[in-house]
């Protein structure tokens, strides 16, 4: 068994299922018997095609939805509802439009620490606004901000409550490439500096490679499964600009793209005999293994 000697299973998803009633009667199973875990201080990403149930998994982790079966456990306790320990960065940023940037962040801070004085709340909120580079815009309303700035406020709001876990639902997908890159750098820096445990949904393979230590591959729904868990072989001090110069980069990238292009669809029909839903295989694609296992796509 590879890599996970020091597994602490800080977050553990244990056999969760989610079903919706079908229009003509009966039920659609979005996924069932889903298992995977994440460690403290680890950055995990989940990739999979649209509609496979990624947001549902994240909502269950956030406590906004409850699974129909199974449990999600954080730090030894089953999730029963939303908690200030788990901050969510929403895809649609979800800022309160009648509040200023400072007002939005301060709302979170005063929810986290209700007995703090107004000054203390303000200081904490300002510190987070500065951290995401929005100093000077704190008195603007969300409508006066660009998409990237709004997403920054969302990040500042999530960080301001000093959560144990940061949950992100495609936080950068609506942004242009340049802004996305800068924000990825900022999120990575903040997460590394503070040892933040984070879980992120993404459609962007390069984003997953750059940010995540562990990438969960989810097959197409209905009846989605965790096909495997990819352990990122790239060094921890990787940079975004020279990512592609890392020796294992293409092996990893090809592996992920191969999954999205073909295996996410075909996995169901050719499940390996050793596959177990409870212990999805852990894979570490490196330059040396790539020729043997994933040579379907050549390096672009």
């Amino acid at each position, binding site marked *: 068994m590879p890599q996970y000697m020091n597994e602490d299973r800080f977050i553990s998803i244990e056999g969760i299922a989610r079903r919706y009633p079908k229009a003509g009667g009966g039920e659609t199973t979005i996924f069932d018997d889903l298992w995977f875990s994440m460690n403290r201080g680890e950055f995990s990403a989940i990739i999979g095609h649209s509609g496979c149930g990624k947001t549902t998994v994240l909502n269950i982790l956030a406590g*906004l939805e409850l699974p129909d079966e199974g449990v999600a456990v954080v730090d030894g306790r089953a999730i029963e509802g939303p908690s200030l320990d788990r*901050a969510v960065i*929403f895809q649609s940023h*979800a800022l*309160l439009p009648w509040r200023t940037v400072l007002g939005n962040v301060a709302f979170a801070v005063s*929810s986290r620490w209700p007995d703090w004085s107004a000054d203390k709340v303000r200081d904490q909120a300002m510190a987070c606004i500065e951290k995401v580079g929005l100093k000077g815009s704190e008195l603007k309303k969300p409508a006066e901000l660009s998409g990237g700035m709004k997403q920054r406020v969302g990040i500042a709001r999530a960080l301001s409550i000093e959560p144990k876990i940061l949950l992100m639902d495609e936080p950068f997908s609506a942004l242009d490439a340049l802004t996305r890159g800068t924000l990825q750098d900022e999120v990575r820096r903040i997460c590394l500096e503070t040892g933040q445990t984070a879980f992120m949904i993404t459609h962007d393979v390069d984003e997953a490679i750059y940010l995540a230590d562990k990438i969960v591959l989810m097959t197409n729904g209905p009846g989605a499964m965790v096909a495997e868990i990819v352990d990122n072989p790239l060094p921890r001090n990787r940079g975004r600009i020279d990512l592609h110069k890392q020796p294992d980069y293409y092996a990893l990238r090809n592996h992920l793209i191969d999954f999205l292009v073909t295996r996410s669809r075909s996995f169901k029909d050719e499940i390996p005999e050793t596959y177990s839903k409870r212990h999805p295989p852990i894979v570490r694609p490196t330059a040396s293994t790539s020729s043997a296992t994933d040579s379907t796509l050549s390096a672009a």
Partner: protein
Amino acid sequence: MSSNLTLRAGVLSFVLFALFIAAWHIATRQIGAVANMDPEYAKLMGLTATTGKSAMPGPFDVAAKIWEHLKNPFYDRGPNDKGLGIQLAYSVGRVMLGYFIAVCVAIPTGFVIGMSPLMNKALNPFIQLMKPISPLAWMPLALYTIKDSAVSAIFVIFICSLWPMLINTAFGVASVRKEWLNVARTLEVRPLRKAFTVILPAAAPTILTGMRISIGIAWLVIVAAEMLVGGTGIGYFVWNEWNNLSIVNVIISILVIGLVGMLLDQALARVARFVTYPD
């Protein structure tokens, strides 16, 4: 550009107004004495017939009377002769009181209905039934049970202002964006704080639209209600002046009713601008 447009619109408004006054003046001007009438008969017929003066007052008659009212709006010479200002104050006071009570009832109730799908479903048939009832239809019942005409008028204002505010509040509260509620949920915001810091500001523009509709209806209804109950108020004043055949005063009342209605609406529009948020 836009200031230019405002200027042009202003000029046009003024021209239209001047044309209207001119047309009014021409239509009501003296046509000259009617000749050769038996003096006894002429006396009987009054000025209208003898001098050819129109029964309809002209703009200058009205203007002169307005000036008279403006000079002394608050005189009180007994129950049938009070200044226009006093009458208006009575009407506005009744509207404010009935409306205020309606706000106090409609907004909390609307909140409950909007937050609870159960209450929404349970109360909906009643609201749908009560809403189309003309507020004046309540008047006999109010007079019978309350036995006080002034309070009955306030009750009628209350009942007519209630529905638009109730329905709009419930709708505004029920349609607060799910993502904002999810923000509040992930921040573990307590219900009361959530109501005041998320739901109320989110629903405020819809609630204010309801409040604006209500004040408009209340002002429409007070005139009719006061015609029925009598005593004081601008509605009673109109009816009384009609009985006195003082068409000048009737026209002035119409003007003043429009003016006050507009001011009430504008005041709420101002508040609405204050709570509206760009999205």
